């Protein structure tokens, strides 16, 4: 099986021959793969394989040296992160981002895209519309918090909750942005096993409701249980892609992880 070989008829995200180097180091080296709509696709690879760089390239935080990124059939290569997000691709970060001085539900309310109240003029010209959408967003935020079973945190300061809860809030907030494909960067890193299990259930539930996921994760048990297919990255290029079973039994993957190389 060659790289990115699985047939993808309805790809929500397509990465083609993506390249990025820092100085002399090719962090992303002609990476090609696609994410099929409706899947939970895993992205694994040893430390330094270029997973986070790839995320940054896809989401517009880095500008690629070559290659293209397509979201929903639109070429988003070189666009600003906010423009990529407007095309339906939302990402989270490896370390939860802290929002000082906000309550959890305030932090949630940043999620919805294109709120009328984000226009300064609307605040004075159309306060009624702003109030309406704010009420709707608040209700939606609390509904999602309930689904995540963290609605009791709604009025807590967003900086005073545990790391695992922050990850849950981050996932919940990303859902408010109504992504077509959601990129999760190590969703369970540093999360206790109980919350990790909860996160896994949530990702699965959201996937069943129609959200496509691409996730980086080092926790093999977590990713093998959740993701199918799995893309393996090594030294910036796609080593292989397959079901968890295939990936687990692939000698090249084992070599890459153990540093066998040739």
């Amino acid at each position, binding site marked *: 099986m060659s790289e990115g070989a699985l047939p993808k008829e309805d790809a929500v995200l397509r990465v083609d021959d993506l390249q990025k180097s820092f100085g002399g180091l090719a962090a992303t080296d002609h990476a090609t793969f696609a994410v099929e709509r409706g899947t939970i696709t895993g992205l694994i690879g040893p430390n330094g394989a270029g997973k986070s760089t790839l995320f940054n390239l896809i989401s517009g935080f880095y500008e690629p040296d070559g290659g293209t990124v397509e979201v929903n059939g639109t070429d988003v290569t070189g666009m600003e992160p906010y423009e990529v997000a407007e095309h339906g691709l939302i990402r989270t970060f490896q370390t939860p981002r*802290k*929002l000082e001085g*906000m*309550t959890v539900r*305030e932090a949630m*309310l940043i999620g919805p*895209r294109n709120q009328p109240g984000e226009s300064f003029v609307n605040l004075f010209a159309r306060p009624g519309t702003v109030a309406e959408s704010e009420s709707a967003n608040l209700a939606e935020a609390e509904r999602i918090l309930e689904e995540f079973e963290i609605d009791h945190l709604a009025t807590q300061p967003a900086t005073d909750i545990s790391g695992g809860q922050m990850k849950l809030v981050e996932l919940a907030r990303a859902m408010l942005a109504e992504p077509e494909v959601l990129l999760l960067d190590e969703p369970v890193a540093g999360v206790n096993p109980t919350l990790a299990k909860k996160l896994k259930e949530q990702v699965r539930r959201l996937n069943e409701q129609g959200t496509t996921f691409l996730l980086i994760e080092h926790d093999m048990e977590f990713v093998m249980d959740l993701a199918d297919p799995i893309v393996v990255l090594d030294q910036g290029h796609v080593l292989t892609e397959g079901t968890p079973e295939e990936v687990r039994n692939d000698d090249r993957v084992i070599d890459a992880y153990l540093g066998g190389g040739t």
Partner: protein
Amino acid sequence: MSLVDDPRGALADLTRPEAWVLGVSAAFALFLFVSLLTGALGPSYFLFLVGLAGMYALLSFGLNAQWGFTGLINFSVAAFFGIGAYGSALMTASSSPIAGGFNPLVGLAVALVVAFVLALLIGIPTLRLRADYLAIASLGLAEVVRLIVLNERWLTNGSGGVRGIPGFFQGWPVLSTFPEAMPGLRLEVIPGSPVLLETAFWQASLNVLLVLMFAGAVYFVLHRAHQSPWGRVLRTIRSDEDLARALGKNTYSFKMQSFILGSLIMALAGVFYTHLNLYVGPGDLDPITTFYAWVAVILGGSGSNRGALFGGIVIVTIREGTRFLNDAAALPIDPAPLRLLLIGVVIVAVMRYRPQGVLPPQRELIWPSAVDGGGTPDTPESGVREQKGGGGDE
């Protein structure tokens, strides 16, 4: 729940810092009132101080909209203040080397337009970069503006400054002749020390009216903006710009809006100053104004509009109050230079004991009708909390 409908409930709703500030302010107001009645404080001078306090409040409002909301570090408060002051002075003054003689409303408009353009020009190259670049560029801008004002004599009359500036209400019906038309009043509360209310007093009260209008309008705008989704994006940028970008917010545009809004408010303070002082000179652009505004915002609590108002009043109290120190207590030294020392001591004390400022934002910032009327009747309304408002230590 407003103070008018339910005063007892509204008072019970206050957080501790709010109650403290309210108490101290009330005591201070009482002290001023007594000073006025006894004639220790001249009423016209008092109103001049109120105007000055309003001006500093405007400067702090402007800086708060940049630093407090969005985390933009602007060291050119004095430049935007100066643009406002000179913009309106050069348009309206009889001695103006360029246009001159226009209605103060024209001066106001010109000052705001110039400040807008300047904010845009400085924002375009710096706001895409990290926060420190704006800080550096604005520090340079402040000096550039000051030196231009000082040296371009054909434009600004150089070190001579601009004189012959009319009051803001000159040329308006009723208001332009109001001070002369009002009768002189003589109040004698304490026998032997009468309080005289004459033309100067009525003139000063017009200035107070003007600054109250400016500050009131700005407060209304900022208060609403702060509670809105717009303000929430700014606060997200302050904490973590990448998060805002990842969630689809065009942070460059939001930072630009916040920067321009703040700069316009600072220019407004300058316009008011012009018509309060009736003279502007290059000395008004000294960087000290920038640092007074910073002290006011950090002292009041970054991100809080009420805090900015409070900080502005404290600055004027310290600046002008020290003038009276010698009368009150016979000090062996001249207290005027103590002013800066005193401000330094205050800021050190605040940083040490209350780094988030005296009155940081106290409540959740969600569009009010969405919380009260809309979706969520069961949740507690005010997630009252002590928070780390970020602030001066960054």
